[in-house]
């Protein structure tokens, strides 16, 4: 996080991400403070590597990433943000499992994915505490659970969003252990997304060869409708 984080506007750890989801003004202020603007443009490197001429954007992304301070404040905010998303995923799968829409092999996978999200929650809580922070509390969520088709499509959307959210944060993580953990979770979210893609007959690689990251602002806006 950039230096303004040191002044009195440092967000309280508990519930901050949830508040950000609800409050556009807070979100904009937080994102400005966190210097997350870089997240939006970091896909530029891939484009540059592919031969596009977006060298300026690439440089901007690198600069934005390197100007984040090396303190753990940024990592804590990222971990609590990821924790909020994992809470939401866990809550979603809990509702899906309870619905009994899926049986057999698919039902088994859904259950498995739900419990894997739960292990992500626990791992992230542990990581927040290890960095000396306070894990955020779970937001109150309300996901529509109407039919097998609707739920499967929503699951595909949710998992793709989760995967792109982790991808969006990876270059901003300072602590190597935190990064290794985030990467270990990131590819599992991708596996979930691809699995659901086969279920709903959609692409397993919707972004093609290069998965597209999503910044915090985009993700928080996308989950906002599901908060109770």
């Amino acid at each position, binding site marked *: 996080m950039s230096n303004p984080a040191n002044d009195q506007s440092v967000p309280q750890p508990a519930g901050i991400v949830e508040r950000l989801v609800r409050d556009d003004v807070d979100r904009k202020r937080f994102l400005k403070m966190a210097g997350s603007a870089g997240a939006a443009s970091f896909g530029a490197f891939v484009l540059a590597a592919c031969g596009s001429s977006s060298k300026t954007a690439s440089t901007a992304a690198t600069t934005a990433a390197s100007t984040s301070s090396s303190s753990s404040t940024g990592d804590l905010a990222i971990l609590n943000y990821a924790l909020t998303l994992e809470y939401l995923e866990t809550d979603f799968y*809990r509702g899906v499992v309870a619905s009994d829409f899926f049986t057999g092999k698919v039902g088994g996978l859904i259950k498995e994915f739900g419990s894997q999200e739960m292990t992500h929650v*626990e791992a992230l809580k542990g990581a927040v505490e290890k960095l000396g922070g306070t894990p955020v509390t779970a937001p109150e969520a309300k996901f529509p659970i109407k039919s097998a088709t609707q739920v499967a499509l929503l699951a595909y959307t949710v998992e793709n969003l989760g995967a792109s959210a982790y991808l969006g944060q990876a270059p901003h993580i300072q602590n190597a252990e935190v990064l290794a953990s985030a990467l270990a979770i*990131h590819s599992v979210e991708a596996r979930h997304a691809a699995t659901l893609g086969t279920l709903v007959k959609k692409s397993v690689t919707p972004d093609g060869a290069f998965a597209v990251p999503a910044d915090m602002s985009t993700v928080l806006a996308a989950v906002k409708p599901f908060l109770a």
Partner: protein
Amino acid sequence: MTRASFILRGALATGALYGTTAVAPFVSQALASTGGGDAEILNFALTLEYLESDFYTVKGKQVGLSGQAKSYATLFGAEEEAHVSALTAAIRQLGGTPVAKPTFVFPTTSESSFLALASVLENTGVGAYNGAGPSLKSKAVLASAGSIVQTEARHAAAIDLLIGKSPTPNQGFDRPLTKAEVLAKAGPLIKA
């Protein structure tokens, strides 16, 4: 107490078993897999991508695939080729020299053995990128590697589902691989 936190409280024992403790040993493994600078790491990745693209585009045709196996091989082969191009350009951008494409030998003659090997290659690819990630110095390179590993993970899950295996062989946390572990899997397939 929210509904979600109530459920989580009930699952705390599970979390303690599979959560942080499940990640911890893998983290030290990922951090141990340092191997030179970014260009060197990307060259290692490039070798793997050459292997994967050759496997899908050349071997896939020789074996004679059909149905879903064929369409995955076509799609994934094109995506691996795109990774080859991106990594080649990235290595040059870092001032390095991209490795030449090696010659490969794949011990497979049927669709089923092809898919079984595809599963090994894709899952090894995921572990390789996840293992190398924390060693990358450039955040831009890390972003690029992350973008690629997500695609490898998607390939791995799709192939595993097709052959009746779990799409999440490492459960909630993908296991990063060291360079030596990756070489143990990929090395025998590299002829020269």
